[in-house]
């Protein structure tokens, strides 16, 4: 059978519809207005160089007594966790009674080129945790890491287990050399020393280019063709543009921290081998003896599930829970189903552990 069942009339009508939509979209794009992100009310409670620590306003009368600090990655901006009213991990956690804090690392510039992982983990992050402990008169708090922020949370908790009561990791790379890890495959032969010596901070465009290269035809072509279908739906168009803003609103990466992260984690797979050094301290995941909740996405193309699941055999905790989410790397935070599943899962797990 001939594989096309189209008449010229049908195909013509389709193209005409497409063009009409696009033409109409010219004005809707101009009228869409400013694209904002980050919807939950919050206040700045602590600053440290470019870092800002936010505390979110409660949405229920009684908050959980142990605060939860969210640690985001250095790549992209943390408002992904609070993108819009109906797609917000933070809002979901607030509704569940969590007392939420968020680390915003800011946009590094040339003066931050020599920031090391030690500065991020034993410096900025440690001071944020200390601040919250003092503010709440507590010895320990709960920690939630997102992607690279999850890896940072693992390092911090392994180095300072006395500061963390419960640890939650989401889409967190642990084993950086699983066979399906494309980023690791690409990074293997890169001369990162030369790259950092040459570029200083790593430009965000380079990282975005790398991420786009994973699905170039869909991410640079089909996606925008699909966008034409949204042009006559202002809310959906705005949501699309909000996500578009988040994708390309990427900070540069502080050179030394980038060098260390690529070499020690991606190229040497040091976290799994127990060889990562933060400052003069070795990261031993066996030190993580408190309860651990590890949430991963089954369709994650950036952090393959196997990479996250490797945590199970490495931590010293006897209370380890693994939760798969059927979706992708970003879907775990912004998809409609995630709003129903992820915040309650995390909050209930934390509440059960005091």
């Amino acid at each position, binding site marked *: *059978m*001939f*594989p*096309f*069942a*189209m008449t*010229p*009339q*049908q*195909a*013509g009508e*389709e*193209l005409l519809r*497409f*063009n*009409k939509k*696009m*033409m*109409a979209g*010219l004005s809707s*794009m101009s009228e869409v207005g*400013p*694209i904002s992100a980050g919807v939950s009310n919050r206040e700045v409670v602590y600053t440290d160089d470019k870092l800002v620590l936010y505390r979110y306003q409660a949405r229920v009368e009684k908050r959980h007594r142990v605060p939860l600090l969210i640690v985001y990655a250095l790549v992209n901006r943390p408002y992904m966790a609070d993108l819009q009213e109906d797609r917000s991990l933070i809002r979901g956690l607030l509704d569940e009674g969590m007392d939420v804090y968020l680390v915003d690392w800011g946009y590094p510039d*040339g*003066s931050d*080129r*020599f920031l090391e992982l030690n*500065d991020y983990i034993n410096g900025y992050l440690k001071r944020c945790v200390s601040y919250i402990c003092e503010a709440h008169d507590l010895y320990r708090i709960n920690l939630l890491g997102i992607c690279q922020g999850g890896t940072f949370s693992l390092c911090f908790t392994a180095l300072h287990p006395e500061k963390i009561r419960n640890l939650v990791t989401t889409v967190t790379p642990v084993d950086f050399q699983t066979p399906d890890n*494309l980023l690791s*495959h*690409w990074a293997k*032969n*890169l*001369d990162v020393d*030369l*790259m950092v010596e*040459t*570029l*200083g901070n790593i430009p965000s465009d*380079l990282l*975005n280019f790398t991420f*786009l*290269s*994973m*699905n*170039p*035809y*869909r991410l*640079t*072509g*089909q*996606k*925008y*063709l699909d*966008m*034409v279908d949204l042009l006559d739906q202002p809310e959906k168009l705005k949501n*699309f543009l909000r996500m*578009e*803003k988040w994708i*390309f609103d990427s900070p540069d990466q502080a050179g030394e921290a980038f060098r260390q992260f690529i070499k020690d984690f991606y190229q040497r797979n040091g976290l799994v081998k127990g060889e990562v050094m933060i400052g003069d301290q070795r990261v031993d995941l066996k030190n993580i003896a408190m309860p651990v909740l590890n949430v991963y996405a089954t369709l994650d193309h950036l952090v393959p599930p196997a990479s996250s699941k490797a945590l199970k055999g490495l931590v010293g905790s006897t209370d380890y829970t693994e939760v798969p989410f059927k979706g992708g790397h970003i879907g775990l935070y912004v998809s409609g189903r995630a709003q129903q599943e992820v915040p309650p899962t995390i909050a209930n797990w934390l509440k059960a552990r005091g």
Partner: protein
Amino acid sequence: MANDAFSVDWMQGWSDLQRKIWNEWIAMAGELNTNRSFASMPGMEGAAQWPMQWLQQAMGAAGQGGGAGGGAMPWSMPWMQQAAGAASPGGGSGTAAPWGMPWMPQGMNTAPMDDWMRVFGVYSPESAPEKSAMTNMMAAASSFVRMSQEIFQSLQKMGEGIQDGADWTKMLDRSIQQAKGLFTGQDGGKAALDPMAAWGQPLQLWMGMLKNNPLFSTPALQSAVMTGMQSGLEEQGEAWLQQVLATPGLGLTREKQERLQEGMRDLLLYRKAAQEFHTLTSQVNVQALDLLHKRLLERGATQKPLESMRDLYVLWVDCCEEVNAEMVRGQAFQQVNSRMINAMMRVQKHVQVATDEMLAALHMPTRRELDSSHRQVQDLKRRLRAMEEEIKGLRTQDHSAEMRSIRDDLDRLDVRNLRQELADMKGLLEGAQAGLAGQGDKKAGSASRSRVATREKPAQEPAAPAAKKGE
């Protein structure tokens, strides 16, 4: 069903469709209400103020002049001249634009979609992310419409063939082979379809940095290398250049020349690596068409025909992604990609060194100096943080236990007895002095021993210090 689809003249259908689209655009242009005028566009100075005026001018001029090349127009844009040149019998490559419609004005004898996209680009939003999304949308739409047009033409040929009793599978195969030419560029020309144009932007950005490379101070060498970058050096020419670059330098500028030669060798390596990368990645489009061919045959066999252009586009994207995924997971891509990026970094490093030398000569801050300063500031910040934490620790440390311990020690010392002991010693001294005088020696020694015995008593009473501990 299949034969029904080919019972009409497809090209007539396409022509009617384009006319319809064209009319829609004209209507839309008339409705656009904006303050932005064409006159603000580069190359459009003195042009009509509004789209409708522009269209009338264009069509009027084309109607009067009737000549190719757009020369009769009161103004022109570079892209229009190029398009018209290509379409004219004697102009450009002589290749007529395949999408030219007889009813369209001369000088606009190119893809109407492209024309209008350029025109309406001026109306696109100015702020991100709307602007970039709009640009990408237009690029994707342009590819889609062009692709649709090619498919229309292929289907028409196939339809005619099928009506004449030809084997559609062979015709499909022929069409796929022709389509490959669109992606690879025929006769060494530029590919007509570039689905990865947006993807290529960052790469072009990176490559663009080489254009102003201060390394190439010698015009001849600069020309030689940049020509090679653009069109590919002949092997012989490259060997010659390598030989030149291997010549040792002499005298005062020896070191500089050596660095320059090294930089140029790295540039040649980068050029080679970039070509390897391009060769490897461009195979994706061709292999994806082979996969598409396979998928179409499967659909034919399973009685699941495609029912829209969009379905076909999505199927093609799926094929591209599948082929691309396999390619980027391979060892070849890993090596070629790393080689290109590493080579690019080496070239950039030379650029930086040369730039620093120039800046130093102008007594301006260099990147090296800035790096040193930033490193020092970072070190100082670390030390400051460490001291702050130490001071904070000292301030908040709990000294009460230590204080109690010191107080206990003080209590045990029994200051009264110490005074007594001092007095006793003084007495002994006086007694010793008096002994020199004779008689009083025995009395004094006896009193002294008695006082020492009395003094040891309180030390044997633990009650007093123990009571103070609780204070």
